């Protein structure tokens, strides 16, 4: 265990008796999103605090002072027009982009400070990419097992058991020995989610997880995300899926011009937008 910080109440992935997708059958595509409203759940203690975050690429300032808190158990949707910096924001949270200003406190610890063990931080933060980024040279199962085994968090046998559990959970147990190139987009993304979950992360970041998918595959991925949310996982989701933002998330954030323009529970956010640019944005996407 080499002194790894003990996970605070990890999301118990395996305990999902009431989830419809728990059996191996793929998620029913025809089923419309049935978001179980999550707004009533109680936000826990602060997990991530972002203070005046600035990110500039040369002269181009993409994030211009973002301040917010992410509490345990929250599901936060981040929306905004393209190029607004929402992807950069979420990638900053696990330091894939190194901030040029401000700081990020993860579990009370400033992870933007020099000398921070970035890898240790990333172990605790799961990330799902728009382009899935599965390791092309490995089978589905190996994709999931690689990090836990290599970082000595699990033995090979444990990791394999975990991988099979997770694949069962995302409905892809029968694809364990296939290569990513043999899967559809939706299946790839579900494997990518399983791969992140294998690390027992304390928070999951989703960077437009359904944007690269064919329309009929969007729901199978959203359904998995719903399950995660129901299980109490802390999630930050950059998305264009207004249905998800509305129905599943506990908070919705609108970023434009590198700043947070609106930060509200979904009902208020959609019914009663205060920011003018958000109103324009919503009228164009809804």
């Amino acid at each position, binding site marked *: 265990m080499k002194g790894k910080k003990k996970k605070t109440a990890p999301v118990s992935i395996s305990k999902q008796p009431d989830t419809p997708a728990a059996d191996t059958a793929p998620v029913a595509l025809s089923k419309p999103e049935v978001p179980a409203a999550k707004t009533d759940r109680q936000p826990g203690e602060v997990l991530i605090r972002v203070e005046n975050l600035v990110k500039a690429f040369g002269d181009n300032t993409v994030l211009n002072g973002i301040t917010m808190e992410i509490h345990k158990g929250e599901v936060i949707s981040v929306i905004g027009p393209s190029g607004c910096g929402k992807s950069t924001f979420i990638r900053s949270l*696990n330091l*894939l982009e190194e901030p040029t200003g401000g700081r990020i406190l993860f579990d009370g610890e400033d992870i933007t400070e020099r000398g921070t063990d970035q*890898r*240790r931080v*990333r*172990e605790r*933060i*799961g*990330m799902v*990419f728009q*382009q*899935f*980024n*599965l*390791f*092309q*040279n*490995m089978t589905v199962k190996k994709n999931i097992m*690689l*990090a836990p085994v*290599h*970082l000595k968090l699990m033995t090979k046998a444990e990791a394999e058991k975990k991988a099979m559990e997770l694949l069962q959970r995302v409905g892809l147990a029968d694809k364990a020995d296939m*290569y990513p*190139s*043999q899967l559809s987009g939706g299946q790839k993304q579900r494997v990518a989610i399983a*791969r*992140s979950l294998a*690390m027992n992360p304390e928070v999951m970041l989703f960077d437009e997880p359904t944007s690269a998918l064919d329309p009929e595959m969007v729901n199978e991925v959203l359904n998995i995300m719903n399950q995660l949310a129901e299980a109490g996982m802390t999630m930050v989701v950059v998305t264009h899926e207004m249905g998800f933002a509305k129905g599943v998330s506990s908070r919705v954030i609108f970023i434009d011009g590198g700043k947070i323009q609106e930060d509200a529970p979904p009902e208020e956010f959609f019914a009663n937008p205060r920011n003018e640019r958000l109103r324009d944005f919503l009228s164009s996407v809804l």
Partner: protein
Amino acid sequence: MKIKIARLTALLLSAAALSCCFSLPVFAEETGAETKITAESSEESSSAPVSFDPEGKKIGVTKGSAAAETAGSLKASEVKEYDKTSDAVFSLNRGKLAGVLLDKHMTPVFLEKYKKLTVAEGTVSSQQFSAAVKEDNTELLSEINRAIGDIRKQGISEQLLETYLPAKEGEEGKHYTPVLQKGEALVVAVLPDNSPYYYHQEDTDLGLDREIAYAIADRLGKTVRFEEAASADELKKAVQSGKADIALAGLETSKEAKDGLAYTQPYLTVEQVFLVPKTAAASAAAAVEEENAMPDFLQRLYDNFVKDDRWMYLTKGLWNTLKITFFAMLIGLALGFLLAIIRVAYDKNGSVPVLNLIAKLYITIIRGTPAMVQLLIIYYVIFASVNIDKVVVAVIAFGLNSAAYVSEVVRSGIMSIDPGQFEAGKSLGLSFPTTMTKVILPQAFKNVLPALGNEFISLLKETSISGYIGLMDLTRGGDIIRSVTYEAFLPLIAVALIYLFIVVLLSAGVSALEKRLKKNER
């Protein structure tokens, strides 16, 4: 000591006996100027004596030979220098030259082969051959001078010249039997396959210079180690660089060249004559004879590859070529991947800037200079004073060379991998090296496999320059056969076919591997 003297005496006696019986030409001790010898050893059959005046004609010589020095003063319209005497004579026979100036005792073998040729009347000049040592090595110079003085006094060199002058067929000459004392080695630079000075025949090491070397070493209380140089230039370089103590390969005495070498007193006096076509009538008759004597294809195959186990030159050469290619490939792959990773680590993360600079410099230098120059530098400069197996030198040289190319190929392969693969590794908490070895390199390797295969095919063929450090690779093996049989076609074609065969095998191996790796993903 006693034994040695006894042996030498015996040798001398037999020498004297021989020269009585066969009345061989006498080689003058001092200048050789007064010896008037016509082309007596050749003209027994139809041809009338031919006189030859080189003025205004195109003549051929062997590069770096004593004859080449003489040729400069002959007013010939053009002096064409050949790497091998056999090549010069071949051109003469083809009518491309008017005459070839060469050492007299080398003529019989050519007269046997080319019926159209004969030796022109008169001795052109008489040359004295010396050994050469490094200019500042006066101590060794005087030691060797003393040894040569002794050798000449005992008539050993003249005896050897007789032995190696095949005037009468079937006559076994007397050889100098080395005493082979224990002691440090006298490294003697020689030109290999240079009959009659230094050559192999049927697994026997022969050569006039070779035996002179033993005689000198015996008098110095040393053993002999031969350093085979690829050309006369290389020969001098070997002595200049200290790889060899002395050069012994028909170097001319009187030369005042500022080549950094000091020449000893002559150990041998040799005459030079012109090899020329016979008179028209005789030539026509000879042409018919040659036509008739033209061996059929099977005979030629036999002569080139079967006789005297000559195919061994090809198999031994091939074995060396394969060894060099294989191990150079391993070094190239290992070092090439390392260089590529260093450069990518810098490009992606800005880490290891100093190593990156070194890697870039290395790649620039290696790619910016010819492989042959690198090979020569490694052999003559870096390993100048080290006695090291030439195959090892070649492996190092070609490995270092290949690494630069491999690294660029691999780097382009790594850069072609979707950055998302790096990010996925990062986001899972994997380190850069782990992501590299587990995720990126396996994919990059598969992508660049065709390009790598290409690089190794180039490498295989590039090793054909190994001959420049006197290493017998496949190409050189073919060369040796060529210099023995005086035939170009079959040995060269055989060598070409062998290379082609290996390249085809190599390509097949690469595409099989490619297919296997592809199957893993699709």
